[in-house]
């Protein structure tokens, strides 16, 4: 990409998203809305450039698409399990906290992982430890603290999260 296009559109993905969201918000593709969407998609990333963290340079969109489909499928399928727990008697509940060691690095991949864990039933992510003040600071090994609704096998759960969600994310962001 030539350097002037990079200067004009610093974050192409975000510009596309702004364009689409503006059209959805107006629910029309009339020329005036297309014009407004283009102006906003170009102007907003430029104006807010100084507020942003450094963007992850590289995303494999094909893998990202499969990941999205997999997560949507998981949300639908595994909700049945939560319904069974919710409707069953309370004394059978076995909740618990679990620390999952993380190999993933970077703010965006980590927040996607935390959101995925929260949306897939049975687990809610609570905190990433230790706290990182500065994105470039090296804090050593990090953990994701999660609350689990039905904790029977801790090691298996950690293994599943790492295999099912962390590894695809690592491939996707190349880290």
């Amino acid at each position: 990409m030539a350097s002037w296009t990079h200067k004009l559109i610093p974050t192409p993905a975000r510009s596309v998203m702004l364009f689409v969201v503006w059209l959805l918000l107006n629910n029309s593709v009339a020329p005036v809305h297309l014009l407004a969407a283009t102006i906003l998609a170009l102007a907003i990333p430029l104006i807010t450039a100084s507020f942003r963290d450094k963007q992850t340079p590289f995303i494999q969109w094909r893998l990202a698409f499969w990941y999205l489909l997999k997560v949507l499928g998981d949300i639908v399928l595994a909700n049945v399990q939560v319904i069974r727990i919710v409707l069953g008697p309370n004394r059978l509940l076995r909740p618990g906290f679990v620390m999952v060691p993380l190999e993933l690095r970077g703010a965006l991949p980590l927040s996607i992982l935390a959101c995925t864990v929260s949306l897939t039933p049975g687990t809610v992510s609570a905190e990433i430890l230790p706290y990182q003040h500065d994105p470039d600071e090296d804090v050593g090994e990090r953990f994701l603290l999660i609350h689990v609704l039905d904790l029977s096998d801790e090691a298996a759960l950690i293994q599943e999260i790492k295999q099912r969600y962390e590894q695809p994310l690592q491939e996707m962001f190349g880290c």
Partner: protein
Amino acid sequence: MSGIEWLIAVLVLLGAIFVLLGSVALVKLPDFYTRLHGPTKATTLGLGSLVLASMIFFNFVQNELSLQQLLIALFLFITAPVTAYMLIKAGMHQKVAALEVTKNQHLMQVSGKKPAP
């Protein structure tokens, strides 16, 4: 009633049932941390199903192109985990008691403290 209307009916009912289940979980489960699971998942899924039904209704029954509802679903699927994360952090900071049978309760203390400035 045509096939497409049956599809809408099933999606609407499924969505409403999921929303109701999320609220039942809120009333029935014993402590704050388990209660958090209901609204973040069942309710979000229910709303996703309702949004799908509404989109099918406006596009195929009313025959007007309308994808606005997608925006609501998108927004909710992004914000629901963030809300849950903020809530559980607030709960741990306020030292809301967890159920006695909760395993690894000591991990709550590790997290609740404020990071050094």
